[in-house]
């Protein structure tokens, strides 16, 4: 067999396996608060944050907020990071992270603001 074709096949095969593996491993499913509390995996939850229900702890530099879903369930979230630029006007807040020790530890907080970014490409 042609060595070049062989190289090509090997490269593609390696990346297909590697890609699928990474893809599966980094999937973060959307779950309810209840499910998030019982799962030992990185998941994604969505909810609303009421004004006054987010505080920034100046000693630990952690950002705390309470996420609420339409069923009335609440989830305490702690985030070691910057408060997103437009957190206050969010209609929904998406949090990616893992539950542990009574709190949902967020790796990433996404703020959703309809009409605000609508149209801007980035």
């Amino acid at each position: 067999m042609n060595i070049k074709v062989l190289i090509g096949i090997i490269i593609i095969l390696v990346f297909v396996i590697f890609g699928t593996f990474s893809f599966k491993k980094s999937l973060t499913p959307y779950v309810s608060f209840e499910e998030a509390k019982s799962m030992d995996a990185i998941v994604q939850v969505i909810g609303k944050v009421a004004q006054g229900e987010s505080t920034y702890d100046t000693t630990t530099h952690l950002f705390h907020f309470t996420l609420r879903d339409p069923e009335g369930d609440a989830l305490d979230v702690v985030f070691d990071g910057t408060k997103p630029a437009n957190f206050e006007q969010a209609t929904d807040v998406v949090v990616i992270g893992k539950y542990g020790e009574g709190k949902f530890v967020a790796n990433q907080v996404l703020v959703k603001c309809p009409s605000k970014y609508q149209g801007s490409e980035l």
Partner: protein
Amino acid sequence: MFLGNLLLVLGLLSGLFSAFHFLKSGDAYPKTFGIAKSLYYLLVFFITVATLYLFYLFLGHHFEFSYVYGYSSTDLPLFYLLSSFWAGQEGTFLLWLFFGVWLGVFLLKKDDELKSHTMFFYLVVQIFLLILLLKKSPFELVPGFAPEQGRGLNPLLQDFWMVIHPPLIFVGYAALAIPFSYALAALLKNNYKSWLKRALPWTSFGALFLGAGIFVGGYWAYKVLGWGGYWGWDPVENASLIPWIFVLVFLHGVIIEKTDGALRKTNLFLAILVFLLVIYGTFLTRSGILADFSVHSFTDLGINLYLIFGMILLIIFSLGLLLWRSPKINSPKIDRNVLSQGFGVILGMVFLSVSAVLILLGTSSPIITGLLGNPSKVSTIYYIRTNLPLGILIALTLGVIPFLTWKGSIIAKKILLPVSLSIILTLLALIMGVRSLVYLIFICMGIFAFMANLFVFIRRIRTNILTAGGFLAHTGLGILLIGVITSSAYSSSVKVNLPKEEEKDIWGYHLRYQGLEEKELRVEVSKGRDNFIAKPKFYYSDYTDGVVRTPHIDYNIWGDLYLSPLEIQTEEESFVMKKGEDIKFRDYKIRFLEFDMVPHSVEGKMVVGARLEVSWNEEKQVIVPTLIMGMEGEKTQRGAELPEGDGLVYLEEIDADNKAISLSIVDISQEASETLILEMSRKPLIGLVWLGTIFMMIGLVITWWRRRKEAG
């Protein structure tokens, strides 16, 4: 409404007739070509007038138009007022179409046997955009009375880079429809002699603009958003990155076809694929399908059906045509050595394609997993993990290619210098603190790619600068890759509490927070002789109904100092009071008069206000802080300012049974003590990212110039 939409309908009609005549003219009916051309100019005319009309509506503050109302206001400076045009989806479709029809005018100027059919396919694309635009027109009126004032433009978008970002992207998108049309015309006519030569300048042009648009967007995110990065792997960003990577693949495939005559089918496929990916990206970001997975929730505009239908039609037709013609296209197989430059180029194409496909898979993950059940997206780690090894392989390929001959041998003598220089610089990185093996390899390859291509570039400047574009772009990519690693993997950050007028020492910097002045914070930063006043922005915006924060960046060759304000903690006093009672705050006497119930609840929310009588210096005034309570228990407070502007009163809670309220008053006077919480980060060598980008863009300009000359 009438005039704007009429222009669009007239545009659509001329476009349709023009397309029909272009198709009919082909070779057989050269006479109808003139008619088609005139009709095309008519389309250009209508779209241009519609565009100018929308600008006119913005400049005249015609808030009876809901698009003008939604994205502008009378207090916007002229520059931002003009940019409101493309602040929303409707306007960006018009902008895209405007660039599209005008590029078509230049396309018409070149005489070519494929011209009629190319114009036909090109028009199909414009008509598709026009239909989307008609479905979601910027010329709709606000129902009822015309508002006095518009909603304004999002303060985050009021930035020079954000103003130019959408036009750059859409010039790119518009241009990439041209190689697509040429490829389809060539397939339809089964004539592959000239399409590539004709399509090439447009491809380089599109790659240049789309690339510039992507990087400008990244720079804006870094400068304005304050999270410290420039790329977040968000679907909106990926949607333009994926077609761009494939344009680059295509530009390299062309080199093979031009020298060896091979890869003919691949190039046809790539020209088609690039534009299909532009459309797919538009679908991803405009349909609302990723609404729950992206920071930028592009809501469903009701154009989904049209978008999906149009996209599927384009995919089936173009790929179907390619498959049907494919057996007849004769593409010679050229067998070159593994050590040939040609093989290196193909290898680079494979790596780039794999990277783009992986990003495409990740971006589409909610759709892919949605088909299997529970839609979920991949975390950003996925993109980083998969692209890291590809980045290394791409850099290695870039570095080796200049030392290979086209026929297949390695010029071993010349490779020694860049290799040894790379190793020395990598050792330097090791001494500077880079310890991870992967990052060391990455940096080493980046330096190698940079060095290797820089030498060739310098040599080419002297011989033939037109052939130097690629090498300059590769030099830039090498620099960019180094910058990506140093600025992200070796970024350090710390959060500092800065009580007003107290000096703090961090990393050898003396920091002193001086207070808030006109929407800007003043932070004195000094280190040795170097000192400056950082002015990050921090203010409340009515538009976003929240605090807007913008970092201060101290640009530096060795790395930026990035100061991002997080919070300001102020003194706050709480009071509980019953109806008729008084409280004292500073020199104010505040009495709770009564509740101020707003009879109409807004969207199921209850709005309660407390009428407070404020007495001071023998004057009296009533202020009404309000509390808005939603169905799910969420509260929104609208504070009221004290008469002298030195305090903000918030209604925290109400107790209707006891006719009591609890208030909090935030002291915002000059004497109030406040603490700024600031995130301070170092971004080592982040300037390399922008420097690399500029090199890549200049490289693309040179390539474009070369291809333009070749096309004649």
